[in-house]
Each structure stands twice: as structure tokens, then as C-alpha cells.
């Protein structure tokens, strides 16, 4: 008798069967999987399920409490919306990758120990990179490699932290970490990298704009918010996060001014928004944690909606830059209106979902009398409206006619956007639906006269500023440097330094060495004979064996990172299958 089913089961193992179906049946199946996953989450009883003993470790696959259920609820909803949005995509591997990615995110959410968390954490990185590579252009392939390498480094740091934690405490339980030792900081760095906290953020804005139209919608939902969940779980009340989050909120806003690619602009606003959540985790009060969860929940929905709107524009016009867009509201009015609902939601207009969620975090800062944090977070929210609610839609849909004559996107894309837009307004109008899911008791009332007037003044006068400065705000065909410079250009410059400085210096030392030690040449010749006949003989014999083995192994080596990634994902799948049953 099965009394508990892991919601990832449908997404990860169900996804592997997608290629068996064709046409309408396949489309039905692609919607069915996330729907079943959502249903499983809705019906799940709180408690600890799926405890497995594996090599002496107690692995917990199903810790269901209010915190994990709230995240699981929105993750599986995002998977369903994303699946509907991608329904027209013929490339089956993208569906599989998206579902394995979403399923791993749910797996990480329900993990009760660090080892299970780690396995799903890595699976997320390997599955999601397919959504970037699947665009099949040079920029995407390159950005995908960088994305994978950065996450591989983050994964190693996280694993190191977990191992140290196990060695020092004997436990791998995934709970709040108390002792500030090496494990504390290594695991924190692993989490912060996935949450895209500067200076560990550049992978996001480097890779997301290069993903497929439908893939970016999935990417916007899972990686950063799974990291927010992990931070809430392990690091509530860690004060350093307050300032890191606030700086992050501003960092995203500043770079969004300079962004010309519409999805890169939205990517910088993921960083900005997640900054609020990270700051709230640092505050750690009941209101702040509730705020972080509520904000993550609403953010996934409206950010998905914004990425869907931007994706629709890219798909129908073939253009992605503000400097090449404009005036297409006539041809895509429905897309425009749905996008604007996302724009008003992220900007926290009254009656939209951001208003009832983000404001909890800002109020939590006020309750703690964090004056500067409060002022800076409020400033950043003006920036959110400025870019996501004004600049991007103005220069994409309104503004000067760019000459493109697109049509509305396929109906499934509009339906997915419609569902997300409905939820954004629904939560804004009826926040108790969301508040009932939050981990702590909610005693917060967003719709007071002072709060509404306050928010309207901030937003509308930001709008006034926008229209006064509008001439200077259009996109320009430029890119702005960010910290990915260090591994995109810096590595090359480092190699040049090696060739131009280190190598000549080394040569010089060799010259000196030769002239000084020439006297020992006779001794050296004797040594050479020994070296040649005895040592080399042994080495050569070993080498011959190695070469023969390598020749056999070479048959399975293709030298392509994609294939290695597939082998790793495959092995992880087999491992998780083994541990589930």
C-alpha cells in the first residue's frame, strides 16, 4: 500500500516517457504530469514521509510542513503554467529537461537532509542547462557552458560544506545551522550562488537571456527560489544577509537601467527581487519569514508572466533588444495587457500580488527599526516600477514604431499567461488565500489607507520621473560589464600575463641555472644513463599499459560535455530510483 507519493515522481520519471507519445496525446500527457504533481502537493498531509536508509545515512525525501508545502505549491503551479506555455514546442528534449528541472526543485524542497538536497540541487543544474543549450546558437552554447561550470563550482563548495558538517556533527539533517564553522559558511556560499547574490550572480544574467523562449520561463521560477527556500530553512536570522539582500536589491536595479536585452533586464530584476527575500531571511522575524515566503510565491507567478510576455515578443518579432523594438501594441494588444498585469504586480500596485507580499518584508524592516534598509528597499521598489512596469513595456510595445508586424502568439502561450495573470490579481484582491499557506500565523493587513496612499505616491511619482526623463531612457545597442567579465575576459588576460611575463621570467631563470650549474655536467651525464635505462624503462612499461586501457576507454569518451552531463544525470536518476524503492 502506497501512502505517500513524491510529487517529483511524475515530473522526473514521467518525463522520460514523453518521447513515447505523439501529437495530441503527447500534449495531453505534458499537461497531465505537472497537474498530477500539483494535485499530489495539494493532497499531501504534513509530516515526514519517504525515509530511506542508504549506506548508513538516513535520507528524508518527504519533509512536508507549511514551509515546504507553500514552496511546493507554487513550484508545481509554475511547472503547470510553463508546460502550457511550451505546449507548441516540438523539441521533446526540452519538455523532458524542463520537467526533470522542476521535479528536482520539488525534490530539493521536500528534502529533509543535506545529501538528498545536494542530489536534487545538482540535478537542477544539469537539467536546466539543456533549456539554455536547446536554443542551438553559438551564444547559447557558450553561455550554457559558463552556467554549468559556475554551478559545478557552487555544487563542489556546497558538498564540501555538507561533508564537513557530517564529519564535525555526525548529522546531515537539513535544519537551521547554529554553529558558525567552516561548514556553515561553505553551505551558505553554495546557497548564495544559486540565489544569485552578488558577487555570485553573473551566471543568471549571462545565461537566462540566451535560453529558449519557453525554457527561460522555467529558469525564472526554480533555481533562485529553491535557494531562497534553502536559506529560510538553514539560515533564518543570519544578520549578514540583511545587508547582502539590500545591496542585491539595488544592484539589480542599477544594472537594469543599462540593460538593452529585454530578458536580461528581467533577469536583473530577478536579482533585485530575490534581494528582498534574502534580506527578509536575514531579519528572521515571523513577519519577515512570512514575507519572504509570500514574496517568493507571488514573484514566481508574476516573473513567469513577465518572461512569458517577453518571450512572446521575441518569438513573434525575432527581436530581443529595446533598441530594436517599439510600437507593437497594435499587433499584440493581448500580450501587452497581460504583460502589464505582471508589471503592476511586480511593482506592488494595490490590488496586485506584489502589494500584499513585498510590503510584508519592508514592514518587517520597519518593525526592527532598520532605517537605512527600509529607505533603500523602498528606493529599489521605485526602480522596479521604473524598469519592469514602465521602461520595458514603453520601449517594447509603445514608443517609436520599429517596423515589425508580429501577430499574437499561439493560443496556448496566451492561455498560460492568462492563468498567471489571473493568479496575480486574485492574490492581490484576496490575500488571505496566500496568507493561509504561510509558515507563521499572519497578523498583517496590507489594505490600510496609509499603506495604499503611500504606495500610490511612490509609484505614481516614479512614473512622473520616468516621463520627464523618457528621452534618455531608451535602450542603446551596448552591453554592460558585470562580474562575469572575470571568467569571460579576465581568464584570457591572465593567460596573456602568463605568456608575456611569467614564461620569459622562467626562461631567464633557466639560463642562469644552466650557466651556474654547468660544472656539474659530468655528474649529470651519469645520472642521465640511470634515468634513461632504469627509471624510464619502468615508466614506459606503465605507460604502455595505460595507453592500452585508455584506448579501450576512448570508445566511450566523446569529449563532449553534453554527453558527460547526460551520463551524470542518468547515474543520478538511477541512484535516486534506487533510494526511492
Amino acid at each position, binding site marked *: 500500500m502506497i501512502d505517500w507519493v513524491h510529487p517529483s515522481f511524475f515530473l522526473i520519471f514521467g518525463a522520460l516517457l514523453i518521447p513515447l507519445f505523439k501529437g495530441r496525446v503527447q500534449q495531453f500527457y505534458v499537461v497531465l504530469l505537472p497537474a498530477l504533481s500539483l494535485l499530489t502537493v495539494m493532497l499531501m498531509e504534513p509530516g515526514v514521509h519517504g525515509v530511506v536508509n542508504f549506506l548508513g545515512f538516513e535520507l528524508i525525501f518527504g519533509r512536508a510542513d507549511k514551509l515546504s508545502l507553500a514552496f511546493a505549491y507554487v513550484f508545481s503551479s509554475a511547472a503547470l503554467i510553463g508546460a502550457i506555455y511550451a505546449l507548441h514546442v516540438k523539441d521533446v528534449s526540452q519538455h523532458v529537461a524542463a520537467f526533470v528541472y522542476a521535479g528536482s526543485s520539488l525534490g530539493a524542497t521536500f528534502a529533509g537532509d543535506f545529501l538528498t538536497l545536494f542530489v536534487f540541487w545538482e540535478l537542477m543544474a544539469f537539467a536546466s542547462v539543456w533549456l539554455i543549450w536547446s536554443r542551438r546558437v553559438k551564444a547559447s552554447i557558450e553561455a550554457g557552458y559558463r552556467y554549468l561550470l559556475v554551478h559545478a563550482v557552487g555544487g563542489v563548495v556546497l558538498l564540501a560544506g555538507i561533508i564537513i558538517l557530517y564529519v564535525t556533527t555526525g548529522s546531515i539533517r537539513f535544519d537551521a545551522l547554529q554553529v558558525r564553522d567552516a561548514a556553515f559558511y561553505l553551505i551558505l556560499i553554495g546557497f548564495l550562488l544559486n540565489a544569485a547574490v552578488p558577487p555570485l550572480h553573473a551566471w543568471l544574467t549571462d545565461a537566462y537571456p540566451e535560453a529558449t523562449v519557453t525554457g527561460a520561463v522555467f529558469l525564472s521560477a526554480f533555481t533562485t527560489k529553491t535557494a531562497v527556500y534553502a536559506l529560510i530553512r538553514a539560515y533564518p536570522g543570519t544578520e549578514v544577509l540583511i545587508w547582502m539582500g539590500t545591496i542585491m536589491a539595488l544592484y539589480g536595479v542599477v544594472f537594469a*537601467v543599462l540593460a538593452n536585452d529585454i530578458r536580461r533586464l528581467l533577469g536583473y530584476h530577478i536579482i533585485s527581487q530575490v534581494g528582498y527575500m534574502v534580506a527578509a531571511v536575514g531579519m528572521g522575524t515571523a513577519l519577515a519569514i512570512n514575507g519572504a515566503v509570500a514574496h517568493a510565491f507571488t514573484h514566481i507567478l508574476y516573473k513567469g508572466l513577465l518572461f512569458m510576455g517577453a518571450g512572446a515578443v521575441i518569438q513573434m518579432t525575432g527581436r530581443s533588444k529595446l533598441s530594436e523594438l517599439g510600437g507593437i501594441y*497594435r499587433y499584440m494588444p*493581448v500580450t501587452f495587457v497581460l504583460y502589464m498585469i505582471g508589471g503592476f504586480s511586480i511593482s506592488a500596485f494595490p490590488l496586485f500580488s506584489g502589494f500584499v507580499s513585498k510590503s510584508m518584508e519592508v514592514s518587517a524592516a520597519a518593525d526592527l527599526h532598520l532605517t537605512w534598509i527600509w529607505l533603500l528597499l523602498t*528606493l529599489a521598489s521605485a*526602480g522596479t516600477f521604473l524598469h519592469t512596469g514602465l521602461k520595458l513595456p514603453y520601449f517594447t510595445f509603445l514608443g517609436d514604431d520599429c517596423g515589425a508586424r508580429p501577430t499574437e502568439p499561439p493560443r496556448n502561450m496566451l492561455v498560460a499567461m492568462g492563468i498567471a495573470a489571473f493568479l496575480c490579481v486574485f492574490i492581490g484582491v484576496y490575500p488571505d488565500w496566500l496568507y493561509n499557506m504561510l509558515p507563521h500565523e499572519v497578523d498583517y493587513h496590507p489594505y490600510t489607507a*496609509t499603506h495604499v496612499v503611500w504606495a500610490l505616491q511612490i509609484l505614481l511619482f516614479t512614473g512622473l*520621473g520616468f516621463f520627464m*526623463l523618457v528621452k*534618455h531612457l531608451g535602450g542603446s545597442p551596448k552591453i554592460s560589464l558585470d562580474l562575469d567579465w572575470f571568467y569571460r*575576459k579576465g581568464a584570457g588576460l591572465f593567460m596573456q600575463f602568463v605568456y608575456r611575463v611569467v614564461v620569459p621570467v622562467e626562461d631567464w631563470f633557466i639560463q642562469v641555472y644552466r650557466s651556474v650549474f654547468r660544472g656539474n655536467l659530468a655528474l649529470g651525464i651519469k645520472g642521465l644513463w640511470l634515468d634513461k635505462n632504469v627509471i624510464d624503462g619502468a615508466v614506459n612499461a606503465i605507460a604502455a599499459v595505460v595507453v592500452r586501457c585508455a584506448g579501450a576507454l576512448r570508445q566511450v569518451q566523446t569529449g563532449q560535455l553534453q554527453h558527460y552531463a547526460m551520463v551524470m544525470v542518468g547515474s543520478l536518476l538511477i541512484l535516486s530510483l534506487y533510494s526511492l524503492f
Partner: protein
Amino acid sequence: MDIGKILESLVNNTRTLKRVSYVVLALTVAIDFFISRHHHVFFWEDIPGFSAVYGFISCVLIVVISKALGHYWLERSEEYYND
């Protein structure tokens, strides 16, 4: 009614739209003088219209600082990473 037509008529009446916007801006500040404030943490929460000023200054600050950073330091040609 068709969404496209509504949008079209809004875009064609920017002057009316502008006037309505100014009235709304003025109203949000005017209302601020009459609402009662129960509890507050920061002193500026008692100043009517403070958030209007703060919102406007925030917007201008963000634009000016970011544009300056971009112009003097961060902006490069689109081919920068391909060279």
C-alpha cells in the same frame, strides 16, 4: 469591446491622458493630508506627501547614478566579448 481599440484610443488621446494623470497625482498627495495615522515607526511617516517626493527622487537618483556608471565605466560595444 476590443482591447486593441481601447489601447488605440488611449494612445490617440495622450493629452487627455496626461491631464487625468496630473489630477490623479495631485489627488494622491491631497488625500494624504486627511487620512488618520495610527502607528508609525519613522518620523517621515507623519509628513503628508513625503513618499511622493521620495518616489520622485528615487527615480531620478537611480537613472542618474546608473547612467553615469554605465557611461564612465561599464558600457562596451556589443562585440566586446566576441573579439
